[in-house]
């Protein structure tokens, strides 16, 4: 089971939980499991095609998964998955 950190914007859908233990061996499976256990998250996490919403960045142990294998990135039991809004500016 990996740990997923839930940002405040999404905590209403998780009953206030900040971190959730989730199964799954890839980022895609982790997100699918997250949505299966917390259906209210589907509208926020996924777009109409079932792909990751473009305003969300996913980090695996502090590395943006776009620099790894995106949604197919392998997730280990000791890994930490962080969901954050896509936002940057110097």
């Amino acid at each position, binding site marked *: 089971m990996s740990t997923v950190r839930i940002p405040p*914007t999404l905590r209403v859908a998780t009953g206030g939980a900040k971190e959730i233990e989730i199964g799954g061996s890839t980022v895609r499976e982790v997100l699918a499991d997250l949505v299966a256990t917390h259906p209210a998250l589907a509208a*926020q996490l996924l777009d109409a095609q079932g792909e990751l919403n473009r*305003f969300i960045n996913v980090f695996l142990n502090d590395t*943006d998964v776009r620099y790894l294998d995106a949604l197919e990135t392998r997730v280990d039991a000791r890994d930490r998955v962080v969901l954050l*809004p*896509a*936002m*940057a500016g*110097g």
Partner: protein
Amino acid sequence: MTLATPIPPSTPVTGEARLRGLACRSCGRPEPGALAFVCPACFGPLEARYDLDVVAGQLNREFIGARAPGIWRYLELLPVAAQPARGLAVGSTPLLRAGRLGERIGVERLWIKDDTRNPTLSFKDRAVAVAAARAVELGLEALACASTGNLAGATAAAAAAVGLPAYVFIPADLEPAKIDHALAYGATVVPIEGTYDDVNRLCLELADETGWGFVNVNLRPFYAEGSKTLAFEIAEGLGWRTPDVVVAPIASGALFTKLGRGFDELARIGLIERRPVRFVGGQAAGCAPVANAWQDGSPTWSPVRTPDTIVRSLAIGSPADGEEALALARATGGSVEAIPDDDTAAAIRDIARLEGIYVETAGGVTVAAAEAARRRGVIRPGDEVVVVLSGNGLKTPDARRLGAPDQADAAGRPGLVAPLRPTLTAVEAWLEARA
């Protein structure tokens, strides 16, 4: 550090009829919260909304013209209830004809918007002034930021001016001049071992857990609006009209897109006539996600993991407003240019040598982008062009020497003469040897 401090109670920006609070830029959903920055429905970025009919009834050219210099002369188009009682004197920077530089880059009617002349020597003072004003309205306990450098000094100084502590998070390898600048104002500077994007990611998590106002994270809907004042000043400086082309740097893309929004709002409230403006953006070739997408015809950008450029102030590999910047350049017939570091350094030398203005690396990128857009035909003969020079060269003192022609003398720096004895004979001998 105090973690898990609760966010102060809500104080929505609705105290004035002209302010309509925050709404999602993507799905349009209104957001009632005071310090929200992400849409709870679709995760899109929030932005400030105005009732422009109300603003049109409150503002006219004479009214603005009679006000004191500075960004608050456009208060009605900024997302704060009232002009703040305390803060730095920001904005109303010079708009200058740049004939010599224009001749050099092939643009006859060139104007420089000299935003190096803000309190902390960069345009970031505009954005931070609005964020700091809002932080004071909300009663936040500290100002903070994730910075590529210019924002560090701007946040530190603004915090000092309004009497709040400042926490500045930077990539650990940032230019020393920028670190010292922030330290001088009493800020706590926290170097992070990583890229700017690592710092930014960390601050997104921290903003959730502290009661601090991160100017470019949880205060971003307010912060971003400050950049519109550059567009307001350009239009007012030209006699309430827009130029044919605006050239500006692209880091996150926020400044670039807010220039477009600023002109649009002025037209919508009737202060200027709506005329087409082409938007040209500049990025460093070593970190050019938006320029690469523009060149490839791609609808979106691909992130740059490891920026490789002397242009630290533009080294954002994941530009949050990149898609909007790309769309603005495309929709207006502009372009986004990728500038090699050697060209940036050469442009820094040209601007200083020809116009007497010393810019940091982003300014070099911007002028080189104007030249590239002229070669590409995006800037046409006879066009009136405004280049936004966003920061002062004292922040990046080593940059201008990159690739400089070898005219160095004994002191090893072009133009710097080896020390002479304090006698007329010595100086005359030197002059003679030089002739």
